[in-house]
């Protein structure tokens, strides 16, 4: 009986729509609308950008008109819906949707809002070691905020248009074209680092002017037992700004400067030449944070075959290519998916799915100037080929069994997924002195290949409690072999007197210090329990609640054991004590406890 309620509701809704059109046919247009027009006044104290993260303060301290309207109805065989909203110059929306004939529909929507962005004051980056005699040492960190009074924000605009046409000659046939235009403008803070990593951090103001245009065009329909769909998608991202420029500092000794004369021997050291030979650039104005302009073209084709009343099969193929116009690098994505749905009996469904895809990005050759070129013991070549960490072959299979049991339903699913990465991470080119031959030996950059296997088991129980309540309980266990991690990312091996100094070069102690710790924040074993339910106590009171619990662990790491515990309960109460008063109360809590390994490098040289 209860199962009939949804179709009945849909039927009533459909009847109302048909009635509206019928009434329109009879020359009685059905149009309903609502509107408000008014004004608001905004005042603020303290910092605005966090508390008013999505509020415009452009009219702070002044009256600003606002309005909203919606109009929908049917007239002359046309269903339509129009709306508009204006809060201020940064926050507005409007749109129209029309269905002039039963075979044609068109819509147009526009939305804009403001998002205030953070400003890192950089004031925590200020420190320098003191030598034993109290003088300033060489190791230091300092910063320059070149825009200390700056405020940053993003104006987001999205314009969408859609046109659909039902093909009379094809069952369920439809042609459609959709267009999205997203534009981001404003200003943001950009941080740049000087030569020695985080020694000097500089913050600058940078313009935002980015556009993402997405066009989708497709067709779908049914021929007998076969249903097909095809979609072409073109997505272009353009950064219209040219990027900022800044002066990179001159290479010099952190204490003695560019040139230094020994007060005892009188010998002159030119640190600008020595340290400059270790850098790719210095004492020069160069651009930074240049946005990547990209173009993506994608095709997707799908077939759905109703084999018989009990079996349905589906298969899709998709291909996309993304070109980075700025550096001429590309990546390809190819995916096959197939599914089989079997209605074993009236109460049991079995679903099997297979997904296989490949991501292959172009290798990038990083051409670097020789290290300390022209200096004694220098001239090492650190060129390397970057193999993208996005490259992978993925095979995923899903098996799901669902069975109705009276007022309950039970679901069991198993996912098996294998991700084969050519380069989960990559070492950098380095050199060492071979003691036997006395020759400097290059160790080329080496990708860490990795194959991650995941098995996920899930059991789900849905239950209805009469007409007044329902609940859902699920348990998920996930086991992962060779979880994604950053290998040898932390915790340096102690030198303990071992010299890495190269032949003919006493100035370099080592290029890449040996590290051994693997790090990740992803578990290889995970237990998750999720429960939710709702109950209508009476016609004047209803309750709903949920709880999510997760216990996760990674015991495959070589330097520590990662653990994470998540607890997230919540409850809502709706009550109407009498016909005049309605109350809604809610509470939610989320707790995440995890751990991390810290290995700060201590270097006194």
């Amino acid at each position, binding site marked *: 009986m209860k199962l009939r309620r949804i179709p009945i509701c849909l039927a009533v809704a459909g009847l109302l729509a048909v009635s509206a059109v019928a009434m329109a046919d009879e020359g009685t247009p059905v149009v*309903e609308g609502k*509107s408000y027009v008014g004004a608001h006044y905004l005042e603020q104290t303290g910092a605005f950008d966090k508390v008013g993260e999505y509020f415009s303060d452009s009219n702070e301290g002044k009256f600003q008109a606002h309005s909203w309207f919606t109009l929908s109805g049917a007239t002359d065989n046309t269903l339509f819906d129009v709306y508009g909203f204006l809060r201020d110059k940064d926050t507005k929306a409007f749109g129209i949707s029309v269905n002039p004939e039963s075979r044609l529909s068109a819509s147009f929507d526009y939305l804009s809002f403001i998002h205030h962005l953070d400003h890192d004051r950089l004031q925590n980056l200020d420190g320098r070691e003191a030598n034993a005699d109290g003088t300033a040492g060489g190791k230091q960190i300092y910063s320059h905020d070149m825009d200390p009074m700056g405020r940053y924000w993003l104006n987001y605009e999205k314009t969408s248009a859609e046109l659909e046409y039902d093909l009379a000659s094809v069952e369920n046939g439809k042609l459609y074209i959709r267009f999205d235009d997203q534009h981001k403008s404003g200003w943001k803070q950009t941080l740049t680092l000087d030569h020695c990593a985080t020694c000097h951090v500089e913050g600058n103001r940078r313009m935002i002017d980015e556009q993402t245009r997405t066009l989708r065009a497709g067709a779908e329909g049914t021929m007998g037992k076969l249903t097909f769909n095809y979609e072409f998608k073109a997505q272009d991202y353009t950064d219209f700004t040219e990027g900022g420029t800044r002066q990179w500092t001159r290479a010099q000794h952190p204490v003695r400067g560019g040139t230094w004369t020994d007060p005892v021997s009188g010998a002159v050291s030119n640190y600008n030449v020595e340290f400059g030979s270790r850098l790719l650039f210095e004492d020069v104005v160069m651009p930074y944070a240049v946005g990547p302009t990209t173009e993506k073209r994608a095709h997707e084709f799908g077939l759905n075959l109703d084999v018989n009343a009990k079996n349905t099969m589906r298969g899709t193929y998709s291909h996309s290519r993304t070109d980075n116009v700025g550096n001429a690098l590309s990546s390809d994505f190819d995916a096959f998916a197939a599914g089989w749905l079997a209605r074993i009996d009236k109460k049991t469904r079995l679903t099997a799915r297979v997904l296989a895809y490949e991501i292959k990005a172009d290798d990038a050759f990083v051409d670097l100037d020789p290290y300390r070129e022209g200096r004694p013991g220098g001239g090492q070549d650190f060129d390397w080929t970057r193999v993208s960490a996005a490259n992978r072959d993925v095979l995923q299979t899903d098996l799901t069994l669902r069975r109705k049991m009276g007022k309950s339903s039970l679901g069991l699913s198993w996912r098996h997924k294998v991700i084969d990465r050519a380069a989960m991470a990559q070492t950098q080119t380095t050199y060492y002195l071979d003691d036997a031959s006395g020759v400097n030996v290059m160790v080329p950059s080496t990708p860490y290949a990795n194959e991650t296997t995941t098995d996920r088991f899930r059991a789900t129980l849905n239950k209805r409690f009469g007409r007044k309540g329902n609940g859902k309980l699920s348990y998920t266990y996930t086991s992962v072999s060779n979880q994604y991690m950053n290998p040898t990312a932390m915790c340096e091996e102690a030198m303990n007197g071992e010299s890495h100094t190269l032949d003919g070069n006493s100035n370099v102690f080592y290029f890449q210090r040996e590290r051994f710790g693997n790090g990740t924040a992803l578990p290889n074993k995970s237990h998750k329990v999720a429960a939710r339910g709702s109950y209508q106590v009476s016609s004047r009171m209803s309750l709903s609640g949920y709880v999510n619990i997760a216990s996760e662990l990674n015991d495959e790491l070589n330097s520590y054991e990662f653990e994470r515990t998540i607890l997230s309960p919540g409850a809502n109460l709706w009550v109407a004590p009498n016909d005049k*008063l309605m109350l*809604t109360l809610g509470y939610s*809590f*989320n707790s995440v*406890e995890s751990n991390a390994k810290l290995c700060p490098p201590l270097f006194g040289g």
Partner: protein
Amino acid sequence: MSDYTSEFNVVFFNAILNASEKFNFYMDGAYTKSEGSFTSFGVLEADETVPNQDLDYSMVNEYSDLDFALFELTYGVSFQVDTDARLYTSVTYMDLTDNQPYVYGDQDGSITYYSAGMTVGF
């Protein structure tokens, strides 16, 4: 080793009172408390003795503490002036308290938003 804990507490309510055929009152409120912090990293042991160094990591774990409290309250009333027309007015107050200001400066701030107008159905 260090443990990292983040906690979010959200309490909200909504009340609608149709006091008479002409007067409607409503009130929305929410309080959000967000916290995040590391425990102490403990005593760090260097593999080698480093001369002329006095590196103190005892306070490092507190550098990235987060502690925000956000309070939001809206109170509104509408008055029916005709069958399909109502006058409305409301005030919204939002207050953010940053109890651990650091990287982004002190982000304490509040907003008061007054609104009035007329609603028409047709």
